[in-house]
């Protein structure tokens, strides 16, 4: 999957990763790569602007914390973010199902 294809879906993907618990930028990117089986291998730097954008929208929040003896910015999903993620999941399910039917493949 190309970085451009992934960009439009980055916000819900990052939210889904933060749903499991707070994480800093590097951990989010590693989790994104691991959970996609290596398919989502976009330029790592593009995740940080997305994090800033989500924070501005109020779907995630951040604060400086000491992790592993180092000061880092840790992100967590907000209540608004959880609600948005639920909506995005529903929307994605409908979209993926419709595309699968048109393409003539079984929905995953």
């Amino acid at each position, binding site marked *: 999957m190309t970085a451009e294809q992934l960009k439009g879906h980055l916000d819900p993907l990052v939210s889904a990763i933060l749903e499991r618990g707070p994480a800093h930028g590097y951990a989010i*990117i590693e989790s994104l790569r691991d959970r996609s089986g290596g398919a989502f291998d976009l*330029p790592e730097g593009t995740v940080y602007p997305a994090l*800033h954008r989500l924070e501005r929208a109020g779907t995630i929040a951040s604060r400086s914390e000491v992790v592993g003896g180092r000061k880092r910015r840790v992100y967590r999903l907000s209540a608004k973010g959880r609600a948005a993620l639920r909506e995005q999941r529903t929307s994605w399910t409908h979209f993926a199902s419709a595309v699968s039917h048109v393409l003539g493949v079984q929905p995953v």
Partner: protein
Amino acid sequence: MNAIEHYIGELSSHLRVSRRTRNRILAEVRDHLDDGTARLVRAGDDTDRAVARVIESFGPASAIATEFNAEAGTRAMRRAPIVAFGTGVGVFAGLLVAARAQPHPAVPMRATLITQVAFFVAVLAFQVAVVAGMCAASRTVAIHRAPVAPSHDRQYVRLAANISTGAAAIAAAGWTITLAIAVHRLTRPNTAAAMIGGAIVVAAASVGIAATRRLRVNASDSPAGADAEPAGVFNIGERCIALVTLHPVESCTAVAALSIWPAMAHAETTFTAALPWGIAQAAAVIIAFMVLGPVLELRHPHAA
């Protein structure tokens, strides 16, 4: 770690964000590159190779900076109309305070030519400030759902906000001159009200201009979304241009009539005396629309 510092320096040179945001971004990026390097070194890479691989995975500094600039620019763009509106409200509030300089009951007196010119410029400039501020606000509202505003729209909003606060400052200067002359000529004026009001007007205009100029909404980067044109009630400016273009005589008459009424009410004068003021106002408003219309992209709706 020289390569990492070099990368951080290159990223910093491309960023067009506030100092606080820059510091935060650079700290996060440095942490990320350090973490990645440490992980690869633990996996068996030598340090130089690990650093090179981590930097390559992170992406080109200019491209990453563009994304950050678009994000910060969108945030600033959404603040711009609020800054312009705040400036206008501040200037207007200062004028209300300054108006108490006139003793009651007011003694009618004939305004000097300088007062008339300064007052006229101030009124016209304030109208331009309101129109430009509404242009900035309408474009911001029209694309408020876009996660990242296209650079074209960010530049437009910055221009409109700059015109708005600049015009508010000209209005403030005009009114301050009017006020100073009035206080000088009045018998037993409320000098304290004039000074406090004048100070509020000047402060509001200065803060507004400084705040607008600090809004870095014009980062030159690639559009990150579809261009959105103001629609529905937000194309009032375009409709005004069309109206003036298609019906210049009627428009001029209507604006003159609207201008004469407040001129008569405030100056307690006659229709004949207020007529030149109203006609000059109408002509100035229409010329301002014609001149500023293309700058603010207020174009004829039927134009190609």
